[in-house]
């Protein structure tokens, strides 16, 4: 589904990301781990064509992302709060995204109804604009918005950060359900090794912009990762 070729990103002579070859298969649940500055967000930004690669390219479903925009209809993402429109209410935001993804109000309402539990009664009909919600609640809105319109590729940067324990638990279930769908490729990055191991069937660890581990998740994966990061 996603093919990375000789990709690198350099700022003022410092290489912050260098991935020679990486293939993510359709239906895979892909976890990206690494310390601050390892290049996780840079990789996702490149994948979403928000920054330009210094060399190489990324191909998403046979579409090279920095030359064509045709990857947009089937790719959904939430990197940070700058993906939210602060002056809208959560409902308006969902409908706006729905409009852009060809979903009518009823479609969106149906999707929201299935995630009522995840919202925990704090999102919908709360008479608050997105800018006035807490960080955690903003995140909930952003994550659910990526599910609108049945995208084939879902990209979530640090989805577990700022969420309360119950919501983290529920989010894991949502991601696992997505991962079970062979049509959906999920990419998740996290600082939390345990969460990532639980939701991903493949984990890649980045260190200073390079791939240092690439493992199919198994019983020993968490130990292996803990050993690697415990320096």
């Amino acid at each position, binding site marked *: 589904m996603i093919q990375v070729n000789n990709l690198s990103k350099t700022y003022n002579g410092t290489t912050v990301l260098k991935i020679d070859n990486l293939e993510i298969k359709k239906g895979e649940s892909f976890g990206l781990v690494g310390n601050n500055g390892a290049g996780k967000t840079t990789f996702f930004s490149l994948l979403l064509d928000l920054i330009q690669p210094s060399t190489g390219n990324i191909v998403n479903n046979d579409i090279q992302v920095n030359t064509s*925009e045709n990857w947009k209809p089937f790719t959904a993402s939430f990197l940070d709060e700058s993906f939210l429109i602060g002056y809208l209410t959560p409902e308006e935001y969902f409908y*706006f995204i729905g409009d852009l993804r060809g979903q009518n109000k009823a479609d969106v309402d149906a999707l929201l109804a299935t995630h009522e539990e995840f919202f925990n009664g704090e999102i919908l009909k709360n008479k*608050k604009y997105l800018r006035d919600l807490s960080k955690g609640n903003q995140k909930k809105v952003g994550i659910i918005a990526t599910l609108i319109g049945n995208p084939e590729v879902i990209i979530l940067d640090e989805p577990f950060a700022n969420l309360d324990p119950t919501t983290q638990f529920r989010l894991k279930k949502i991601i696992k359900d997505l991962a079970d769908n062979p049509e959906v490729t999920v990419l998740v990055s996290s600082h939390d090794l345990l969460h990532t191991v639980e939701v991903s069937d493949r984990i890649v660890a980045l260190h200073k912009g390079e791939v240092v581990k690439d493992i199919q998740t198994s019983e020993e994966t968490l130990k292996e990762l803990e050993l690697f990061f415990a320096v």
Partner: protein
Amino acid sequence: MIQKFLYLEWKAFFRSASFATNLALKILMGFVAVYFILIFLAVGVGAFYILKKMNLDPIVTVNQFMIYYVLMDLIIRLLLQKIPVMNIRPMLIFPIKKSTIVHFSLGKTVLSFFNLVHAFFLIPFCVVLIIEGYDVLSVVLWYTAIFSLLFINNFLNILLSNKDNLFAIFLAIAAVLGGLHYYGLFNITEITAPFFNAIFNTYWAFAIPVLALIALYYVTFQYFKKNLYLDAGLSNKHDVAKTEELTWLNQFGTIGTFLKNDIKLIKRNKRSKTTVGLSVMFLFYGFLFFTNSIEAYNNPVMHIFAGIFVSGGFLITFGQFVPSWDSAYYQLMMTQNIPYKGYLSSKWWLMVIATIVTTTIASFYLYFGIHVYLTIVVGAIYNIGVNSHLVLLGGAYTKTPIDLSSGKGAFGDKKAFNVKTMLISIPQLGLPVLLYWFGSKFGNPNIGLALVAGVGIIGFAFKEKAFSVIEKIYKSEKYATIAAYKQKG
């Protein structure tokens, strides 16, 4: 302690984003600042002699209109002067007395531009009074009293901030008083002038505003000290949100989706509301031209200039910041399946609708004759046909993130200044003036108007072409724009 605060202020000032512009621009702004200071000085010095020449007693005349001066000052403050409360937050947890914090933040507002600017008018005026042989003590006491009144405004504004629409209420009061005065129904100055005259003529009346100022400072101080909590005075105000569906816009497809968003954007953010307020002021700009009150404006070629401004206030103030209005969530827009054309069309329609509405409201200019209103209508045609494309084109190069929650910057953003936008803005005003001049020189004013309108219609015919050019620029500037919007001022 105050020393440490001053140190922080110094850093905040010199590290603010607006200082990070290039040297040439700083020099240019320096010139502009000097120019305005000189103008104020000239008014301050000249006021005395001009009034004298008109056979009016300068001090009596100034005292008579002082009530309007003070009222306008309060209105401008309510609209623009922001109270810096946010920087207080980090101080709360340090071992600093609350009263010190409050005294400092209140003291800081005293140095605000809105207070200092009056000195440029009042000091020269007072110096001239003294030179002309008025009693020195009287002048000094008068000066003290007037400045106390202006500082009362300063603290009133602090107490009244966070209360919406007060500005409009005060503006309405000023307008009603002015109107009643103009038509001779009721003259507020008859009541207030004796008070201001008393300040000048007696040695005791000045104490009234001074004591009032001291009392008000005390009240403000107590109020702030009592509210120095995160959930009280320092809280961010949360609006009660109402979901609006605006379903009637659904029939317009993609454009409708964006229009819905734009309408909400304008309604729910401070910055955009200020912009709309500003464009309403443009609507009345024409009075300066058509009442023949300013000599330099009193020629027909300048009138077309007014026509552009009167009908295009919103187009100019809003349009120049497309796409910066969406800067806060530009990354989202760039990852969604968004046709640039639909996005641009929605902004274009918004400007066109606003221009038509403005032109309709501007029909009160018919009072000055059909030709004046025709000028405005022609200005509107040119705005829709040509300027709407030009502002969108200029906006594509404008990479200034907009802080929607702050009203500041609506009067022109320093960082938004760049050569390309400047060049693009020349034909916005220059071309119609030139066309009109050409037409009226070699024919008559109506031919001039027809020429301007004709170019507007031609521009309208090239809408598709213009959009595809702008779209290309958007695409080529994409990464630079994303990077620029990430940097928060």
